[in-house]
């Protein structure tokens, strides 16, 4: 692989590139699912290819191919330079990269059990056992389960001398019970909706999730929702569980801090950001207890945004994003970091695969837990009147990341420190900074979970990326509740 990278970089340099990097990526995945007692899908996939990214005539070019023969690699590199020269026809200024010390390194996701070493039979048996538990509850009309494993091995080399071999593993699992009755479809998911929980870990994650043990309870809630009252409309205090808060962080903090969005580079598709450059170190993003980091380092945990190096060879870092409520940092790359007056990339450039250009992606964007011991039950006990919402059902936010609306699978009315009734169809909405400034309590570390979002879409062509979001259940004051059903 090193030879192939060198062939590419030599040709790129000879053709006039002032900078070049090559990524050879080997990806392997396994996707297993069941539906109502039968295997829904059983698929293995592998993909191997190479991309070459260059700067020539001061502009970017990128080409990728499945052909790893010497002639194929050299043709790909030459094509990348040709594309860069075409880019140079429409430019305002030359691309400048922040300096980065070349690295020679090996890095692998720490994992106890290679997920591909577990037999397919064992995996399917587990899913069918969960399925059976879900459908043992009368009223469940559809049960879906899934297990997913990924292995991405990458060789990165640059014309500056970096040579990095990195292997990442990720594992995901979850399930959903649906109940259709009358004029309603209700559902409950575990441990999260839309694919469950995902982490950069081995098969040990599956045991930790206790999938079978939680299935009946989840199915019972799906059916019980049909008899629950509809969530009221109005201004309420709300408590969000950690998985819903993880998605709230993703949408209303993670995306707006992407510096490429801020600089207008995503304006045609993903959108821009309300976090214009004048907001840095001046905007009160949240209340004093809001501390958010973008942390790709191993010590933050096994999030989908954990790695050794990003896809332009910059080591994993921790960037303070919100510090005691003050907005303090963006997600940056070697090309964009100049815009905020800094001279080193935050290390967030990642690509979906070998044939996609790395772009700024969230790493692990996490709300740090409260410092004083506070369990979820203690938080509820200390709340006079509120609605507790669990597990995302719908999510939407505008293209500058101001106005959002989320729906959850289940809600609970809290009165005088106790859960008094189940509520169906809970939703809430608001404006990002008003929302984060209303946060007045965060549970402590033992309630904190590093959630994985495996399906974040961005870029043209669109790339899907996994991101991590640590969160503990938290309380927000005076939030607009129920507008999703307003007028219906």
């Amino acid at each position: 692989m090193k030879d192939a990278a060198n062939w590419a970089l030599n040709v790129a340099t000879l053709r006039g590139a002032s900078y070049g990097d090559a990524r050879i990526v080997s990806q392997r995945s396994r996707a297993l699912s069941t539906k109502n007692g039968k295997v829904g899908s059983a698929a293995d996939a592998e993909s191997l290819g190479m991309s070459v990214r260059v700067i020539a005539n001061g502009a970017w070019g990128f080409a990728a191919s499945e052909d790893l023969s010497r002639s194929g690699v050299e043709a790909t590199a030459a094509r990348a330079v040709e594309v860069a020269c075409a880019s140079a026809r429409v430019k305002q200024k030359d691309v400048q990269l922040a300096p980065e010390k070349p690295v020679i390194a090996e890095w692998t996701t720490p994992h106890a059990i290679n997920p591909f070493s577990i037999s397919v039979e064992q995996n399917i048996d587990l899913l069918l056992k969960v399925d059976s538990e879900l459908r043992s509850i009368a009223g469940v009309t559809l049960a879906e389960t899934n297990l997913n494993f990924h292995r991405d091995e990458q060789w990165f080399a640059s014309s500056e001398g970096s040579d990095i071999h990195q292997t990442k593993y990720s594992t995901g699992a979850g399930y959903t019970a649906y109940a259709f009755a009358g004029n309603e479809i209700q559902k409950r998911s575990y441990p999260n909706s839309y694919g469950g929980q995902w982490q950069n870990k081995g098969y040990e994650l599956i045991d930790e999730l206790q999938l079978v043990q939680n299935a009946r309870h989840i199915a019972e809630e799906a059916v019980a929702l049909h008899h629950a009252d509809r969530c009221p409309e109005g201004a309420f205090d709300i408590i969000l569980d950690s998985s819903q808060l993880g998605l709230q962080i993703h949408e209303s903090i993670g995306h707006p801090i992407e510096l490429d969005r801020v600089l207008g580079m995503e304006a045609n598709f993903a959108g821009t950001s309300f976090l214009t450059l004048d907001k840095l170190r001046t905007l009160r993003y949240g209340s004093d207890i809001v501390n958010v980091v973008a942390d790709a380092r191993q010590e933050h945990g096994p999030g989908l945004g954990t790695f050794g190096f990003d896809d332009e060879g910059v080591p994993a870092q921790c960037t303070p994003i919100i510090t005691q409520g003050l907005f303090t940092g963006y997600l940056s790359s070697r090309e964009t970091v100049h815009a905020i007056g800094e001279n080193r990339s935050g290390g967030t450039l990642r690509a979906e695969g070998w044939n996609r250009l790395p772009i700024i992606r969230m790493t692990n964007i996490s709300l740090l837990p409260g410092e004083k011991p506070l369990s979820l039950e203690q938080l509820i006990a200390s709340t006079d009147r509120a609605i507790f919402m669990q597990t995302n059902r719908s999510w939407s936010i505008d293209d500058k990341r101001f106005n959002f609306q989320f729906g959850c699978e289940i809600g609970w009315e809290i009165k005088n420190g106790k859960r008094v009734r189940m509520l169906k169809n809970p939703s809430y909405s608001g404006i990002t900074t008003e929302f984060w400034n209303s946060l007045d309590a965060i549970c402590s570390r033992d309630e904190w979970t590093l959630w994985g979002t495996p399906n974040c879409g961005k870029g043209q062509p669109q790339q899907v990326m996994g991101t991590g979001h640590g969160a503990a259940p938290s309380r927000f004051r005076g939030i607009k509740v129920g507008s999703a059903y307003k007028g219906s």
Partner: protein
Amino acid sequence: MLTQERAADIFDRIRKFSRADEIEILISGGGFALTRFANNTIHQNVEDENHLLSVRTAFGGRTARASTNKFDEDSLRRVVAASEALAKVQHPDPDLLPMPDSREADGSADERLKATPSRHFAETAAITPQLRAEAVKQIVNVAGKHKLITAGIYSSSESVEGIFNSRGLSQWHTQTLAEVSVTMLGADSSGWQKANSPNVSNLDPLAMAETAARKAIDAAHPEEIPPGKYAVILEPSAALDIVGFMFWDYSGMAILDQRSFLTGRIGSQLFGENITIWDDVSHPLQTGSPFDGEGMRRLRVPLVEHGVVKRVVYARATAARMKKSGFKDKVGLVEPTGHGFPLPNEMGEMPLNIVFVAPQNTQSLEHMISCTERGVLVTRLWYIREVDPYEKIVTGMTRDGTFLIENGRLRGGVRNFRFNESLIHMLSHVEAMSVPVRACGEESFDMVVPAMKIRDFNFTEVTKF
């Protein structure tokens, strides 16, 4: 790019490696290029070439799939072995059917479908990075002329899709596609246009840039008006992005799973009488291959006629299951329609070639505006998600050109709205439609859809810009 002959040769080689009762391969891929611009600069410019080979094997009632992008001997052996190993450990599925042969795959399609027009154009396949850069330069010049900033893409692709199985089925489709999307940004406003076509000569990037620029200029200094129920005119891209959220439900499997909003509603007057929708892969404005994930020819299916939901689409196995189910007498005609996804899968099938039929009295967008006393014109919708699966309430935002209409004229830009709107309600309150056109957005797949004027469209909140 891979040819049909080479693909057939790969299939012949693969068959020799397999001991399965049946084997099928799907081949897809080709060349793709995209020039991306922002801040009046080309900032990303990519090309890639890739082909995917996906092998499905079946042993009795057990089946599974493995895929690779490597076509050397070892890789072909490995992908067959992986598929077989996965298949052998499955539990037998009593609903799994033998693979279709050519006669079954083509048998029920009418002659017109068998002659789906060519969607491969040499001029599109020959687009170079230089040509894309020249077009972008023209767009940037328009931005400069109007003192705006532009961002967008110009992409081109040439792709193949093929399926072969051990019962003699062989299907092959080639296609090109060129796509342009332009955003124009002012200080406090924006405008947007997007179009694509297999034939690049159908695209006019310069005209799109001028239209997007005009929207950005006209939307400047947006005023805030309160949320509420408005007469709303959705341009075709906005209409397709919102209605696209219901078509997953036009599936036999979705009915069997009781996850469709059509459960219990097929045959009823669900929408207004002016709504008629077909799935028609052979429509001249449509794209895509004329066969499904098993190689079955896609039939032309009437989904909605004058507001009454008539039928849903079916993969082969779903149709067989439906005929044995308690729903069979409540769902209209049940037959394989050639809309299945590659097996095995959980979702079954869905219609992907949606064509709205023009009502008798179509209106131009300009006429709709001129007939509106007070309303809102929407260029584009964004981040649409389902809120309620059975009432089919979806939420989302307006974007890149939202205008107040008063007394038949555009009065100016307004701040963007959040909507929470039931698609059942919406399609029951369509007051006027334009001639359907090929349109594309970002939230749903491309379709042939009109601009629509909706009565009492439900805006629930307004954002800050």
